[in-house]
């Protein structure tokens, strides 16, 4: 990362925020504040909240502990879902990837069900697991499991035959082959799928938290902000979710870099 890149990144971000502030100032008084929403009018809407109202709303949300608690609760659900889902998905993917007979049977269903939007399961999960914590976590876990399963499965399938033959020729038994050849070679694919899955987990939570929606949760914070509607609240909620997605993405990237160290060493 050279200095030019950092400088340009900062210039780009500052320019974007200045543009927003300008638009908000220009829009004040000019944008409509009374909006028809299909069934009724809503009053006092700030379509582009100014700096000051964002700051006010932000300090209120932080001081009243609402934002922090919501972040903690939602993050906990996402982390749990990610852990459960990726463990199940990766194990299953490694299994079907390594055992070719299993794959032949599983393959039609893998190709078929990878296109089911996991959100569609939400009403079913409410019936199966109730309105509590488990249906939210399991919905995220399912979403994550599908993606990581595909990553692990294709990762194992993609290991060049030569590697395995070479290992076998050198006398490695199946377990050693799995540990020292298949697993490291499948790692990049698995880790890439984990990165995708972290993004999807946060998409899922926004909807999953509408199940028996209760206050400390980011999904309900957004839903409430939309129902009133309170735009500063809404934008702060969006920014918070965005920031969390960013943090998780960075963590996934770090994991990816750590898991693929062997590639750099080999090169």
């Amino acid at each position, binding site marked *: 990362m050279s200095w030019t890149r950092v400088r340009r990144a900062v210039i780009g971000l500052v320019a974007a925020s200045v543009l927003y502030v300008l638009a908000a100032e220009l829009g004040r008084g000019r944008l409509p504040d009374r909006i028809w*929403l299909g069934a009724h009018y809503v009053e006092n809407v700030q379509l582009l909240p100014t700096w000051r109202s964002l700051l006010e709303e932000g300090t209120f949300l932080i001081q009243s502990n609402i934002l922090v608690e919501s972040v903690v609760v939602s993050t906990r659900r996402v982390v749990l879902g990610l852990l459960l889902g990726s463990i199940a998905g990766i194990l299953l993917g490694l299994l079907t990837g390594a055992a070719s007979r299993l794959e032949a049977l599983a393959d039609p269903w893998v190709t078929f069900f990878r296109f089911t939007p996991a959100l569609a399961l939400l009403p079913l999960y409410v019936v199966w697991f109730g309105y509590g914590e488990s249906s939210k976590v399991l919905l995220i876990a399912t979403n994550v499991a599908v993606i990581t399963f595909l990553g692990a499965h294709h990762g194992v399938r993609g290991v060049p035959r030569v590697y395995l033959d070479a290992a076998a020729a050198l006398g490695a038994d199946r377990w050693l082959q799995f540990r020292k050849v298949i697993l490291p070679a499948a790692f990049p694919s698995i880790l890439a799928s984990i990165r995708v899955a972290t993004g999807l987990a946060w998409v899922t939570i926004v909807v999953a938290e509408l199940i028996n929606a209760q206050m400390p949760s980011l999904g309900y914070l957004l839903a409430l902000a939309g129902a009133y509607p309170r735009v500063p609240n809404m934008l702060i909620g969006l920014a918070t979710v965005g920031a969390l997605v960013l943090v998780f993405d960075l963590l996934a990237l770090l994991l990816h870099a750590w898991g693929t160290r062997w590639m750099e060493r080999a090169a």
Partner: protein
Amino acid sequence: MVIARRSLLWMVSLLALIGVYTLAARLVSRPDILPPTEEIATAFGALLGRGVQLGGGGEHAHHQHHPDSQQMETLLQEGVTLQAALAVTTGRVLFGLAVGLPLGALFGLLLGASRRADDYLHPIYILVRSVPPLAFITYIMLWLGHGEAHRLIPVVYAVAVTMVIPTYHGARDVAGKYVEAARALGARGRLLLLKILLPASGPAMVGGLRYSLAIAWMTAVGAEMLMAENGMGNLLVGGGMWSSRLQTRSDPAVIIVGILALAAAGWAMDACAKALGARLTRWARA
């Protein structure tokens, strides 16, 4: 030979799954949790519109098929059919792809081809990309009113944002070398774009297209679950208005039918994308 064996395997696998499910449903014998296979089949028939024809009204069909299915009752009263819902959602997905793919691909090409644009715009892109599309539906509604916009824009956004990264890597990592060589030979402007940059980033873009498809379906259904009076998402949450969403007790049979329909539609669309992609990137295997 191979194709015949594959389809045979498909059939066996399909029958096996149905068999296992039927058995499991019978063993558990809790129709409110795992509805028996016959009930799913009748739900399928009713959702295709036959229930309405037979009963001449929601209530009749309701008695016929699902003794306690609130969801089915609402859906039939509102005249919702599976094929109509699927058509609406497919339309939204296609619109999202038609607008989102070129947007995302152009932005990705720009970032991949110009170092300067990459430096200035990539951080902004990362910030924007981090916002889940389903989270800003209400904000769009405030700007553009209660209409089609807040169901379409999330899909467009999701597709565009997903398409950027594969295109970017295609243009920067794969096409970069070719572009340099072509520049050295004197290629400029249109020639460079049409003959070098686009074809060379093609395979990566096709990968992105297939991934965008899955994301588009998910976003469209999610947006419909939250705020739409039609489409598959509406069918899944059992109709009704926004305030009562997710409050009525769902009928698992209806949801299973919906999921199967979505899986089939997504699968069919992906097969098309795969075939199209293979045609468009023939050069890569030549």
